[in-house]
């Protein structure tokens, strides 16, 4: 009897070992993108052509920004080094095609999450890394203090092929104001045309207005009107059909936000391994087997926090300290009055 019991337990143990082994490799096997990324040794990331605070390259070609940090987090998780990212600057027009045609594996380019984009064209949005809304910039000496002052015949400069173009129409239509849309392919030309006086107002996401204002010849002569005319949840996008890769990107972003929530920073991440809070221990990989479910090792999240930092650090470094949007507004944690709220990592 005991003899059989011993055999039975060893059988159960073997099955259990086999099972965990298969689940571990299944994830890795199922994801072509993960396999290719590990083979290439870098994450292929699509970013903007230069939007300070989100994705912007300095003179030496180093990319910084909150969108850039999402890609760096994935690189830290998957390859162990946040610098193993190849950035591809894309115009608004090129971005989705670049992703669906396999030129890049993550599109992290201040892209608004909408139903038609998510469902119709082979894309999947994995989350929101910046809650934004569309606003208007005008000249101070115009005397405009609100969008209600706009009159028929106003000309508005913006980027073509964005949700901005559609919101602008909805907005002016609902107000019954006739307007002249002047749309450019690149943001630099929009700024130059508005700066020269071609347009009475420049409209895009408010974060974008704040960032581009720095590029105007005299930024202090311009103000952003208080109204927000749309919801613009910006977030990273992946191709449809690779749910493991989708999960990796989603949880890399979630890890950054949850790390801020639990007060884990790049500086104290290592010491948090011995924390009393099991949620914190899970987050830094000291407890549980969360990495295996994603086809990664268990230190993936610790590497993200150590190499890239938590969301708050990333925001402070890229957006607050650069003077773009010092006030976090809705992009504050839910515990502090904002709407950043991510599902628990467990």
């Amino acid at each position, binding site marked *: 009897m005991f003899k059989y019991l011993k055999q039975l337990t060893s059988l159960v143990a073997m099955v259990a070992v086999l099972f965990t082994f298969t689940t571990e490799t299944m994830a890795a096997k199922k994801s072509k993108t993960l396999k290719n990324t590990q083979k290439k040794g870098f994450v292929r990331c699509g970013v903007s052509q230069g939007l300070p605070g989100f994705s912007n390259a300095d003179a030496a070609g180093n990319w910084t920004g909150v969108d850039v940090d999402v890609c760096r987090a994935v690189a830290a998780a998957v390859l162990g080094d946040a610098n193993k990212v190849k950035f591809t600057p894309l115009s*608004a*027009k090129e971005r*989705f*095609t670049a992703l*669906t045609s396999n030129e890049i594996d993550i599109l992290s380019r201040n892209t608004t999450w909408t139903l*038609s*984009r998510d469902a*119709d*064209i*082979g*894309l999947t949005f994995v989350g929101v890394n910046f809650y934004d809304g569309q606003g208007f910039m*005008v*000249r101070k*000496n*115009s*005397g*405009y203090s609100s969008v209600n*002052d706009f*009159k028929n*015949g*106003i*000309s508005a400069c913006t980027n*073509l*092929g*964005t949700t901005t*173009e*559609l919101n*602008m*129409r*909805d907005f002016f*239509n609902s107000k019954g104001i006739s*307007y*002249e*849309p*002047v*749309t*450019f*392919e*690149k943001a630099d*030309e929009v700024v*130059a*045309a508005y700066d*020269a*006086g*071609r347009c*009475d107002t420049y409209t895009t996401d408010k974060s974008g207005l704040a960032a581009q204002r720095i590029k105007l010849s005299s930024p202090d002569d311009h103000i952003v009107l208080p109204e927000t005319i749309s919801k613009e949840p910006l977030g990273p996008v992946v*191709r*449809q*059909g690779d749910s493991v890769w989708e999960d990796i990107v989603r949880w890399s972003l979630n890890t950054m936000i949850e790390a801020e929530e639990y007060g884990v920073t790049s500086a104290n991440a290592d010491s948090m391994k011995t924390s009393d809070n099991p949620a914190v221990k899970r987050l830094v990989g000291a407890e549980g087997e969360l990495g295996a479910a994603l086809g990664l090792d268990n230190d993936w999240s610790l590497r993200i926090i150590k190499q890239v930092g938590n969301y708050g650090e990333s925001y402070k470094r890229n957006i607050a300290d650069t003077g773009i949007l010092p006030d976090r507004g809705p992009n504050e944690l839910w515990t502090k009055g904002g709407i950043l709220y991510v599902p628990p990592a467990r």
Partner: protein
Amino acid sequence: MENRGITFGYGFLSQESSFDVQFSLIEFDGSHSYFRAYLVGLLNTILVSVIGIIFATIIGVVVGIARLSNNYLINRTASVYVEFFRNIPLLLQIFFWYFAALRALPLPQDTEPMFGVFFLTIKGFFVPAFVWNNLDIFIYSIIAAIISIIFIRIYARKKQENEGIQTPVLSISIGLLIILPLLSFLFGGVDASVEVPVIKQLSQSGFTYEGGIKLPPELISLALALSLYTATFIAECVRAGVQGVSKGQKEAAASIGLTPNQVLKLVVMPQALRIIIPPTTNQYLNLTKNSSLAAAIAYPDLVLVFAGTALMQTGRAIEIVSITMLTYLSLSISISIFMNWYNKKIAIKEK
């Protein structure tokens, strides 16, 4: 494509476009379909190409002849122009003219009206519009004039072949083109009034003009850049064509007593045109294709409206790019068919 979750189909063309376009020849707003957006883009492409071709031809012919001039100053100026403009990339020239125009043009409130009715401002060139009564009768009168001119030409040719007498066709034609429409004003009840643009205040510092016709600065600078660039190549075609006619032809024509004007019109030009037309056709095609650079400066041509905004809003890259390519192909082939027909018409007719 199915693996990547992409669907394929042209059904989106009938969907509501939900975006607006700053300048269009037909009525358009976001409640119209994507197909209409395509038409808007196509018409704008054709518009800027036609304007570009007309001006490029005029400038090209003038400069080409100027390069043959014996006057050193005219000759040199023309060569400097040609060498300068054909050796700078077109996209740079478009940017230059656009942003130079934006820098140089006055704000609507600061502009000096030309002849009291034309207003050239940073927001566009505002010109008076005609408001017509019985426009159709006016158009019929022009058509009638053109038909009678064709008959007179046929008659004049016959008369010259039979009796050797030349008829002053040109002056008769011009006369008809003036008199018939004039009659339609006097007796046809045709009436046109002019609507002059009026300045309008938008804010404490912002102004614009209302009424009349607005030519956006994007159209003006694009047409300018395209014509100045293509004109250099046409000028070279013209120069080559005229130089290609052997000197003996001119001397022979002069020796039988033709006046210098007749030498040019009856002997040199018919032969020069045969050399000029084929390479000029290429330049017309280039200009049409180059007009797609409009997207860089917000002129709503086919590439900006359809392969830009519409592509972005629908995500239907393959469908839209294929339609756009087919459209440019058809445009180019139409131009080349027309020019080939014209070339055949002026070619040597072996009898």
